[in-house]
């Protein structure tokens, strides 16, 4: 592969303190380097914006849940048919894109790393098979822990040591990257058709609370020294008034001692859905200012927006009881999928409408969170693809963040509830390019602990996005221009290879799958395995031997090794 020099662009590299300066970026052998050889290929980026490749820390792109979405929505696919190209496979797009199209479209927006945010451990092979078919981007998947039998059992027994060992083992068995928790305890109760309400609700068969589950898993996470914090979908999602639960949950994590070198102990996902005030969906209003106030005063929390888009999309989550509630509210088609011993999922199509008061409030909440939280290193841009809307709408979200006029123009089309029940109209803040870079790559990479991503210093992965937009001349009123530039990168470079040029995919290498390997002392592991062997035999329908994902499912893997609690 030829070396590349990107010359003359305005570079935004917040992790290295570069804020729109003209700096040449040198790429060699898949890495950013100080200096390339003389015969390097020169990319002229003058008059353009240069950023590290985008890093999405919460998306649903692979595995049984998104595949149920694809399966159940032929009508969605018909809106967005993708023919095969010279270098690309055909497929479908819109809210549940086929795997190939997912990879292409992220790359076309200059994204080069995407996290699959919910992997049911028993279906881990399925996730990895789909990731193999998701080209270009690097990826990782987060196994679900919050309703796993062994988690609940060790929490009940107060056996933190075993829980630590179990988390480490499970990350290895599923080739997972982070600890995902969805409605802790609620999905377990849903196995009997019920839910858990709030942090101190009862997880019936275990006589424990969500508070205990979150505390124990956060402790395990930090004790093991995992690169990312716990990745938490709070209790009471979608229930007006839930902002209180969200703040209480953040407060729970405050008591946890973070691993060395990190201040944070919790990442709250798609916070928009968990920042609702009011008592019901008729009078729902924004709870975002409360959450923003809390986050501004505390340094142990990060969150992502879960921004809502006005479109027809497909909601899908590991939160089975919430999807049941949504089915009851909408009457749309509903798939529920419970996974023995571990998890569940639900999928319901949903259309966010501009004339639906509640939807406009939700739209406002996402943006309020991003704009009222002062420090952009604490709040990241997502749509919780495809829950709030498809990831292909990111450029639109960027425009809303960077241009008050973009927000005002949208608000003019909305039900007036957004004006009365959110504070968005009174917010004048507009993101700078630097803040945008934090929100979409530097901050997310830092939160994930992906040290080679999200920046352009020497040693970083050679993942670069070049957008055809001159940031020195751009004004927020030109937000349509911004949308266009960020929807279709002038260049996307992945691992030192040009994969997108002028918005078109020109090469489709396979990216790596990242996972975390925690070293467990052999005597601790032996002890754990005895437990697992016994319970697998009694309760699982697959044998323990057939459970862990084999190397065959990770043709290119990047292993992040940590030595955890047992030094």
């Amino acid at each position, binding site marked *: 592969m030829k070396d590349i020099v990107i010359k003359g662009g305005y570079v935004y590299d917040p992790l290295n303190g570069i804020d729109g300066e003209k700096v040449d970026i040198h790429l060699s052998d898949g890495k950013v380097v100080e200096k390339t050889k003389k015969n390097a290929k020169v990319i002229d980026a003058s008059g353009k914006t240069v950023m590290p490749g985008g890093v999405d820390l919460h998306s649903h792109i*692979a595995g049984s849940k998104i595949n149920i979405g694809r399966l*159940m929505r*032929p009508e969605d696919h018909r809106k967005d048919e993708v023919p095969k190209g010279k270098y690309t496979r*055909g497929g479908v797009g819109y809210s549940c894109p086929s795997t190939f199209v997912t990879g292409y479209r992220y790359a076309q927006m200059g994204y080069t790393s995407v996290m699959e945010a919910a992997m049911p451990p*028993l279906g881990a092979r399925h996730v990895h098979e789909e990731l193999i078919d998701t080209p270009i981007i690097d990826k990782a998947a987060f196994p679900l822990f919050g309703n796993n039998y062994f988690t609940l059992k060790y929490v009940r027994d107060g056996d933190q040591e075993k829980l630590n060992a179990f988390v480490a083992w499970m990350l290895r068995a599923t080739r997972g990257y982070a600890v995902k928790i969805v409605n802790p305890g609620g999905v377990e109760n849903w196995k009997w058709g019920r839910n858990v309400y709030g942090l101190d609700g009862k997880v019936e068969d275990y006589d424990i609370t969500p508070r205990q589950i979150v505390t124990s898993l956060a402790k395990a996470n930090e004790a093991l020294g995992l690169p990312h914090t716990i990745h938490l979908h709070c209790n009471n999602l979608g229930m007006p008034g839930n902002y209180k639960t969200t703040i209480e949950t953040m407060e729970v994590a405050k008591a946890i001692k973070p691993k060395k070198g990190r201040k944070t102990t919790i990442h709250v996902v798609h916070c928009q859905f968990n920042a609702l005030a009011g008592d019901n969906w008729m009078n729902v209003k924004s709870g975002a200012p409360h959450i923003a106030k809390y986050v501004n005063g505390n340094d142990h929390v990060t969150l992502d927006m879960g921004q809502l888009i006005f479109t027809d999309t497909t909601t899908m989550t590991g939160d089975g009881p919430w999807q049941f509630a949504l089915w009851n509210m909408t009457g749309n088609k*509903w798939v529920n999928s419970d996974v023995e011993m571990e998890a569940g999922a639900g999928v319901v199509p949903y259309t966010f409408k501009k004339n639906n008061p509640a939807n406009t409030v939700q739209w406002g909440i996402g943006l309020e969170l991003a704009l009222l939280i002062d420090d952009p290193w604490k709040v990241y841009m997502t749509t919780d693809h495809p829950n709030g809307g498809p990831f292909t709408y990111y450029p639109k979200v960027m425009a809303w963040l960077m241009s008050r006029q973009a927000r005002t123009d949208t608000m003019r089309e909305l039900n007036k509830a957004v004006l009365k029940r959110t504070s968005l109209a009174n917010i004048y803040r507009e993101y700078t390019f630097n803040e945008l870079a934090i929100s979409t790559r530097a901050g997310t990479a830092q939160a994930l602990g992906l040290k080679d991503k999200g920046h352009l210093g020497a040693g970083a992965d050679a993942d670069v996005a070049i957008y055809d937009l001159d940031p020195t001349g751009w004004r927020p009123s030109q937000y349509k221009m911004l949308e266009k530039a960020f929807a279709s990168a002038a260049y996307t470079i992945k691992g030192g290879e040009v994969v997108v040029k002028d918005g078109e995919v020109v090469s489709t290498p396979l990216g790596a799958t990242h996972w975390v390997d925690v070293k467990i002392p052999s005597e601790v592991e032996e002890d754990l395995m005895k437990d697992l062997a016994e319970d697998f035999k*009694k309760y699982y329908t*697959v044998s323990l031997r057939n459970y862990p994902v084999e190397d065959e499912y990770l043709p290119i893997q990047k292993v992040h090794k940590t030595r955890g609690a047992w030094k």
Partner: protein
Amino acid sequence: MEHVDVVCPFCGCLCDDLEITVEEGHITGIKNACAVSRSKFLNHGSHRITSAAVDGKKASMKKAVKEAVEILSNARRPLIYGLSSTECGAISKAVEIGEVTGGIVDNTASVCHGPTILALQQVGESKATLGEARNRADMVVFWGSNPTAAHLRHIVRYSVMPKGMYSTEGRKGRKVIVVDVRQTGTTRLADKFVKIKPNSDFELLQALRATVRGDELPVDEVSGVPMKEIKELAEEMKNCKFGIVFFGLGLTQSEGRHMNIDAAVGLVSELNRHTKFVLTPMRGHYNVAGANTVATWQTGYPYAIDFSKGYPRYNPGEFTAVDLLASGEVDAAMIIASDPAATFPADAARHLAKIPTITLEQKTTPTTMLSKVVLPVATAGVEAEGTAYRMDGVPLRLSKLVEPPKGIHSDEKVLDMILEGLKEVAQ
């Protein structure tokens, strides 16, 4: 050599506890298997096709692949069909061949649980993995399915007999109900056998659903079942702790087809307003679920996929194998891991004999006999590794226990050879 916890590649149960003895490259012993599995493992080596053939004459693999490439690249509307009894790597290649040739990719779901998928696309589905049945179910309903004949260890391993976390009494703690048109092996072990008139499942399902909703029906009986019994059944369903319906081709392929499943899904969804209830299709071929799964993530669609416009289109009834063959629309076919000549309606099978057909198969079948090109392949799960998806969507790793006969490759490898050939021709 002893292999333990081997996954069985024969039916949708994918039992993963087989113990297999291999001596000098041959399978000589097998434990924990059902009769079908045992016979298939022990006899996988007999009556094998040992050489590729073109026009009924032995040919080298290279020549046969070349012939296959020629057929597919000259065809205007090739059909690629089967795929439910092979591993996912092969399925993946087959989809790509469909795309490269602008052909049609269909799998055997179109003649078994296709209607289940159509219903899911209409109304959804509330489902669970088999371990949920094992650990929690206190009510098990077999509707138009007979595991004693089709899924031999289902009853013992997953649904009726096993003890689980909350099903501590095993069989005793479960109420087993069978709805069918006749006595079967499964009805004999049921607590209640609801015998219904053939082709009247839809009506009974709707009547049950209405009763669960609390609606009074002004009739004495539905589908041959007295209203009193329907009311009792509805009450029992509402009052169980965890109910599961396992349904089979008796529901998907009888009159009403996808509307039957639509009604079953509706009943189960309704029951979730009272208790926990799920349903799971009894998928037959061991990886038909995988064929749907792979095709869906690659194209958005589970079967009946047409690539003639360069992008995938989906239309069961139009792009399904039986319909395409019966109407004479396709002008070449490639069959993988399936025997349509033996199972399709006569009109469809007859057309298959008229057009150049390529078949990948281990043993001589009616389909290989009418094929222009026969490509011998290894048996996935015995002679080749790969992934298969259980009837409930759980993915498992198939093992390679013995070497395939000399010169014989896996489905995936052979399809890859064809794909490479097609790409060369295209350039």
